[in-house]
Every structure is written in structure tokens, then in C-alpha cells.
């Protein structure tokens, strides 16, 4: 009798890539649910369109590029979901669909597919849409009645007005589809933290930096943390495996850098919000952070010749 041979270890842990994808998917349902609650079924339809286009365009692209079709690993669907959550709820479907194609084909596929893209596909697609249709991408509506209004960050930048913290926390304000409800985002983030899908360094450093810098610059730190896309960005974008650093040290640096850039853009830049560009800029620095923020090697400090 002959037995099959393979190298050690002969047992593997319980967590595989598709578990991770499913957990992220479940976590994202909370901010999505909040978006549907505040902005109506239009939010759901928009999400379905974006997600479907993402999955389809991944399949078509991989077919044309003669690569293995990997739409069932869930990554394209999650890109779609993430993109939908950072779009204005009233964005025309066709524009959203173009964003979806850009995310999957331009930002991910052309760079070599999952694991090789430099930029977060959802955030890069949003930046492309914002550059292409600046008006549609900055047309915001009030929850429930869908009357056009401005986001709290825009009002703060132009008038200095600060809405109630409770409304901000619950998500009762204008903004992107899934960014408004801090509560829903925290529930989703809690699931990912408890199941260790994501870890604390990047989000903590990000939110902490924004809070502390706001305080130092004489702004309202709580408002800075609760408004805009910070929470969604910190927990769901700055923790993206592919486009953020791999070590604890690196993730901390990444989060701090995002926080610094967000504050600079919000307070001194031309836009009311800076989360999108901050993370994209830090994405570019990820390879260099990975190169230098290595873990401490056992026995390295006392190395003797």
C-alpha cells in the first residue's frame, strides 16, 4: 500500500478565503440596510445594479483575457457592494454601471486581478465617476423625502453649522448610500473585528488621527469623526487586504497617513470631504510601507558576530 505524500503542515486552519468573503458580505449588509431605510428602495436597486454589473464584467473580462473565471470567490460582488455604498443614492443607474465596469476591469483586472491591484477598486471607481460627472456625484438628498440638500460636511465648510450628534450617529443625514449610519457601520465592523477578518491598527489609527488633529486644530472632533465617509472608509476601505499594508506596524502607519490627509483635505483643501482621496493616496504608498514596516525578527537585536 502506498500513501500520498505532501509537505507539512498536514492540517489547515478553519478559515479560508471564501469564509472571509462571506463575513465581509454579511458585515456590509448593515450599512446597506441603513441606506435602504433612509434613502428608500432606490438605494437597493442601485446596489443591485452595481453589484450585478461588477460580477458580469469580471466574468466577461476574465473570459476575454483567457483567465480562470473567479466570480464565485465573492470578490467582485463585494467590490460592487462597496462601490454602491459610497455613491449618492440618486445617481443614475447607467453612471453607476460605468463605475462598476471601471472598478472591476480598469482598477482590478488590468492590474492582474485579485491581489495585484494597487488601488482600492471601489474608491478608484468613485474617483473616476466624480471626475466624469461632478454634478451627479455631488447631488445629495435628505433621508426619507429625497429632497435635494447638502451634506453636513459641506454645510460645515460653508456655514460652520453642526447637526445633532444623534442624527449623525444613526445616519439621519444626507450623504453616500451607506456612509451615513455610524451605528450600522459599527455593527458591521464589530462583526469583522470579532471574527478577526480585520484588525484594529488601521481603523484606530485613522479615526484617532482625525479626532486628535481636529481637536488640535480647534475643530469639533466628534463631528469630524461622525460625519462624511470616515467610518465606512476606516473600517471597510483602509482595512482592504490587497491595497493596504500587511503588517500591524504598516497598517498603523497607513491609518495615520489616511487620517492626516483626510484632515488636510477637509480643512485646507477644495473639497468638503477627503476620505476617498486620502485612502487612494495611501494605497500608492502601500508597497513602500510594506518594504520598511517589517516585523521585528526574533533574535535580531542581539545579533553577535
Amino acid at each position, binding site marked *: 500500500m*502506498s500513501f*500520498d505524500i505532501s509537505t507539512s503542515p*498536514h492540517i489547515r486552519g478553519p478559515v479560508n478565503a471564501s469564509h472571509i468573503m462571506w463575513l465581509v458580505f454579511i458585515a456590509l449588509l448593515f450599512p446597506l440596510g441603513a441606506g435602504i431605510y433612509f434613502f428608500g428602495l432606490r438605494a437597493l436597486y442601485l446596489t443591485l445594479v452595481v453589484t450585478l454589473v461588477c460580477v458580469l464584467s469580471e466574468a466577461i473580462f476574465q473570459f476575454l483575457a483567457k483567465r480562470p473565471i473567479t466570480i464565485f470567490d465573492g470578490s467582485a460582488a463585494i467590490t460592487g457592494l462597496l462601490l454602491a455604498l459610497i455613491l449618492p443614492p440618486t445617481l443614475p443607474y447607467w453612471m453607476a454601471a460605468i463605475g462598476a465596469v471601471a472598478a472591476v476591469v480598469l482598477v482590478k483586472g488590468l492590474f492582474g486581478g485579485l491581489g495585484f491591484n494597487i488601488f482600492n477598486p471601489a474608491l478608484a471607481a468613485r474617483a473616476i465617476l466624480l471626475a466624469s460627472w461632478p454634478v451627479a456625484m455631488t447631488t445629495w438628498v435628505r433621508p426619507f423625502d429625497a429632497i435635494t440638500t447638502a451634506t453636513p460636511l459641506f454645510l460645515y465648510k460653508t456655514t460652520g453649522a453642526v447637526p445633532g450628534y444623534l442624527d449623525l450617529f444613526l445616519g439621519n443625514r444626507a450623504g453616500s448610500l451607506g456612509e451615513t449610519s455610524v451605528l450600522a457601520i459599527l455593527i458591521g465592523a464589530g462583526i469583522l473585528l470579532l471574527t478577526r477578518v480585520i484588525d484594529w491598527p488601521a481603523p484606530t489609527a485613522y479615526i484617532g488621527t482625525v479626532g486628535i488633529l481636529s481637536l488640535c486644530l480647534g475643530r469639533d472632533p466628534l463631528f469630524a469623526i461622525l460625519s462624511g465617509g470616515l467610518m465606512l472608509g476606516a473600517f471597510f476601505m483602509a482595512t482592504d487586504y490587497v491595497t493596504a499594508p500587511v503588517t500591524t506596524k504598516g*497598517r498603523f502607519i497607513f491609518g495615520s497617513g489616511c487620517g492626516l490627509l483626510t484632515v488636510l483635505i477637509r480643512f485646507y483643501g477644495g473639497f468638503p470631504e477627503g476620505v476617498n482621496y486620502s485612502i487612494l493616496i495611501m494605497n500608492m504608498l502601500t508597497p513602500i510601507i510594506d518594504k520598511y514596516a517589517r516585523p521585528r525578527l*526574533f533574535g535580531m537585536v542581539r545579533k553577535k558576530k
Partner: protein
Amino acid sequence: MGNFSGGLNLKHNKHTTRYKPIKELPQPQKVILPLQQNLGCPNDPLVKVGDEVFEGQKIGDSSKFVSAPIHASISGKVVKIEKLPNPCGFDVASVVIEAGDGVRGKGYGVSPKKLGELTPEEIRKIVREAGIVGMGGAAFPTHVKLTPPAGKPIDTLIINGCECEPYITADHRIMLEWADNVIYGALALGRALMVDRILIGIEDNKKDAVKTLNDSDEKHHAGRRSPIKIVKVETKYPQGGEKQLIKVLLNREVPSGGLPLDVGVVVNNVGTAVAAAEALKHGAPLIKRVVTVTGSGIVEPHNLLVRIGTPFEELVKACGGLTGDAARVIMGGPMMGLAVSSLDIPVVKATTCILVLNKKDAQAYEERDCIRCGRCIKVCPVGLMPNFLADYAKLKNWEQVEDYNVADCIECGCCAYVCPSRIYLVQYFKVAKKELQ
């Protein structure tokens, strides 16, 4: 006390054999004795085909320092000396002995000297002549460890009773059943090194062993001060890695590329201490060892005391045989053990365990692309970046592989265990290390 970063909490799977006393297997009809069973140099045969040999007779030796002689584990006739497969996956010159009726062992007799009368040099000599090597699986000749080079003062002997690999319970049973010999052997090895501190590290999932050894130590010293301290350590894989254990017990870090003696420490396994005790007390060479035979592919798991050279087949038979769905046979534990292709292979000095996994437990995984989740980095007890190491190894960029410190990898398997993309990380590192040699 220190701590080491990384590591894993694994499912122990030790319950099937941890309460089963060591059972001695009857002498086999045939033993296969590879002439190299230790790290270091192979031995030359001292016998030829047709010779009659007795149990305990030295049949292989080498004049090289880093070597350990081989002894006949049964009395009988040498029927073959040729290259045969050994558990490490390659063929090694081996002496095959068939049991004969006429030949009887001479017995070893009791050592004339008490431990207190033996000089360190005498202890080293007895340990070497008995063919003792590290019994925890590494099989490094013990007398070499007991001979630290000048300029490397040793202040602590650590006896490793962690047994952190899942499934294996051989050392656990040894500590419970042969506690007196563990203590005696520890004192003897300590005497050879002239240290006055001996620490026995045991994971806290073996509290009974801690108690038994403490009792034995107290009995042995009967109120006098003992140099031995039994220390309970956290149950965390790879706690039994010698560098990790030194860090935990003494908060000293063996320098990268260095050895325990660079920080004044020598580490020996509890099984090694017992083998030394047997050699010093009774003049017995190392011809038997305890092997845990376990896993989902074994009908009735046991801890067996067997002659070195006994084919795996005999041990499996003594444990009720294989289950119908047995798929993989491993020498050692599931994390670092070596898969073997057949049961004709003999037990060697390094065989701690024969683990047989069924189809479900031994499933093959399809490797996917790295998603950069960073789990491998978090669990690495050495502080490596397995993901980048594997990337560079795949590209055959050996310069970068070296720069990312592949040489420091202890092949514990934590990274591959947690990898959600099921990348065969350890395999890449083994290849890379060979390439860089």
C-alpha cells in the same frame, strides 16, 4: 518569564492517548536499522551479512564528532546491509537483523558508579556510547550538546516537556510513568554541563505531569535543595521550539543564526533525559523508544514502547490496524511531521509519533493567490513575512528570499495553517533554504 509573539492555539487531539499507559510491543521478528539516525555524520557498519549480533551490540559507529553510534535492538543474525528507505524520504544504508533463537543478549549490568561519582567527561562518554540523540524529533547527538565550546559558558539546562504538537502524548506519558528517570536524567545532563539551574518546561495542558515530576523531584532530594525547577508554560504552539521555550523561561533571545549555547543554554527533551538515565544506571544503549500511534486513520491509538528499527507496520497492527479511509501516514506531528509513503519504514531514534489521518483530515488543498491578509505574519513566531518570502521564492529571487531571512524559519507551519488561500508556504521555504545552502 518572557513570551514569544505569534503562535497558535491548536486543537490538541491528545485525548485519545493521553490516559493510555505506555505498552511495550513484543520484540519484532525483523528490525531495519538505518546507519544514520542523527543529524550530522552517517555511521560505518561494524558488522557484515551473516554475523550474529546480540541485543545492545554496537553495529555502526563513526569517528566523526557529530555522530552517534547505532546498536542492535534485537539479538539475531544480520541478513542484509543495503540502502533502504528511511522516514526522511531518501534511502540510507541500513542493517537488517532477523531474530534468531540461539542468540541471547548479554544484559547490561548496573553501572558501578553513582551519579555523584561520575565526572562530566564520563557522563558525556557514556551518553555517546549509548547512541543517545535528541528524542524530541531533531535527533541531534546529545554528547555534542553536552560539550559546549570554550568561551560559551552554560548556566542553564532546559528539559523540554512541552510536546506542543497536537496528537502526540509520548513525552506526556514518559513524564507520568518514568518521572524518576526524567529527574535522574535531568540531573545527570546538568552534571555533565556543570550547571546549577535546571528548568523543566511543561505546557499547562499537562498539569498532572507537572505534579508528578514535582513529587519525584522532592522525593529524590528529600529536603535538600534541588537545582531543578518545574515550570508550567502556556499551551501555545510552537511552545516546544527550543528558541521559543528559552525566550519564555529565561527571557533570552537566541540570536538570529545562533544556537542556544550562545545565550548560555542547552535544551534537551524529556525522552533524552530518560535515555541518559537508562544508560547511566544500567548501561543500556538507546534501542527502544516511546512512539504515539494515533490519528483518525488508526483503529485503536496507543503509546507504544518499541525497539528502534521496528517497521511501522508492526506498530499499526498492534493498534488495531488502519481504518478503511486511512489516507496519510506521518512520522511526527501534524504540523512538522514527515509524510511517508509506506509502512515498511522503520521506527528510528527520531520517531515520536506515527500519525495516520483519514481522507477527511488529510484533504489536499488547492493553492490560490495570496490576498495579502497578513495572517501568516501575525502568527509567525520568528517575525518573518511568509507572504513575501513565498512570492520571492516563486520568482526564484533568492537574493530577496535571503534578505527576508528565510534562514531563520523554523518550519513550524503556523503560516501555512492559517493561510486562507491555502498556500504551501513551508514547502516554498524548504526549497528556498536548500537553494541557498
